[in-house]
């Protein structure tokens, strides 16, 4: 076995770190050092990096049983679902704000496009159901964690979902109080982006800043309980209940996202009197963001429930 050349070893290290970063933490902890050693010995190349990257997919989808931490999987899934759900909720709020702008101009048009109306109904129903599922499944777990929290940092993590949205609300109100100008009337056939037309009077820049801040606040709000799950490691029926509720919440929020996308596409196609919806870039940003977050939420929720109710081994 010849000693590897320094440059080759360096490349091997870089490739290994990059490709191994794609694997689940438990897999990395168990096999990471061995794979690095193998790459150093064999001389890592593009093929080795590509092969490692490719096999990371089944390592996530079907983790080997001896590395499978059922309770840890449930907690990790809950944290991921929480993050994706919060982002979807933020995107839903953006959709509501932008869709409201159509006002009376589209009222008659909408009546002639049942697909848009149905999408709104589906969006509202799914959103309400999803929020209820989060409350029903998340509240007991949150209370159990709050009781178990011993350190100030753990309590802070648990209070983040209340404090951060409240802070965001205060900032939003302040921005609207300070910078709100006259609301432009919606002019039919005016070909400007919906963000220009439906920003609530604060202008597109402040509106986009509030959107980005809102999505960041949603992510931080979800990260707090996620961090608490990692630190407090709760177990038992409340976690199973939360995992089951997470499936309902993720699926319904995903459906709400899909309904909003359907409505947005419908407005783009069939809202002839409101040219603001015919500017494509907001849709081009919104659509992939919703689909990505919904996919992550649903896949992670399913992984969590599979961990909660593992299939019987034959």
């Amino acid at each position: 076995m010849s000693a590897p050349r320094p440059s080759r070893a360096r490349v091997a290290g870089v490739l290994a770190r990059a490709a191994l970063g794609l694997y689940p933490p438990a897999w990395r902890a168990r096999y990471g050092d061995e794979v690095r050693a193998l790459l150093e010995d064999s001389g890592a190349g593009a093929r080795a990096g590509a092969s490692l990257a490719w096999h990371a997919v089944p390592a996530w989808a079907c983790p080997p049983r001896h590395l499978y931490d059922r309770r840890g999987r449930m907690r990790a899934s809950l944290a991921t679902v929480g993050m994706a759900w919060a982002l979807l909720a933020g995107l839903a709020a953006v959709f509501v704000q932008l869709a409201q702008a159509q006002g009376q101009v589209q009222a008659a048009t909408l009546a002639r496009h049942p697909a848009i109306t149905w999408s709104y109904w589906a969006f509202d129903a799914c959103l309400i159901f999803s929020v209820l599922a989060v409350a029903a499944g998340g509240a007991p777990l949150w209370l159990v964690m709050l009781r178990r929290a011993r350190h100030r940092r753990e309590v802070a993590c648990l209070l983040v979902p209340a404090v951060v949205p409240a802070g965001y609300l205060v900032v939003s109100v302040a921005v609207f109080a300070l910078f709100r100008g006259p609301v432009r009337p919606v002019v039919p056939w005016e070909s400007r982006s919906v963000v220009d037309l439906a920003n609530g009077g604060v202008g597109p820049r402040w509106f986009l800043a509030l959107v980005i801040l809102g999505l960041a606040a949603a992510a931080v709000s979800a990260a707090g309980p996620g961090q608490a799950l990692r630190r407090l490691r709760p177990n038992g029926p409340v976690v199973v209940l939360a995992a089951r509720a997470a499936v309902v919440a993720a699926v319904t929020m995903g459906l709400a996202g899909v309904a909003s996308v359907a409505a947005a596409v419908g407005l783009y196609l069939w809202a002839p009197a409101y040219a603001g919806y015919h500017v494509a870039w907001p849709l081009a940003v919104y659509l992939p963001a919703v689909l990505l977050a919904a996919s992550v939420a649903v896949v992670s929720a399913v992984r969590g429930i599979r961990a909660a109710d593992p299939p019987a081994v034959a």
Partner: protein
Amino acid sequence: MRDRLDRWADPPLLVLASLAEGPKHGYAITQDIADTMVVSLSAGTLYAVISRLESRGLIEPLESDDRRRPYRLTAAGARELAEQSERMNQVASVAQQRLRVNYGWAGA
């Protein structure tokens, strides 16, 4: 697309066959398989196989101070390899017999 007729070279079987010689670490396994079975296993494939075989209890890791942890075949792994080898032997002997009879193949 080219038809795959080399399914006999399933990586798990190759790894089991390699470990039938004795405990080996990852690099030694790939070298052995390349030298004796003329199949090149990439790092991703090898460790995907190792993790599955370990999960099924067909191989087990040995203690090592080094990062190069060796693996050995378990009793269950040896049984599995024996069963698979027997099947391959049957297929090979039938194929060779028919080739001799119908195609005049004299053997390698």
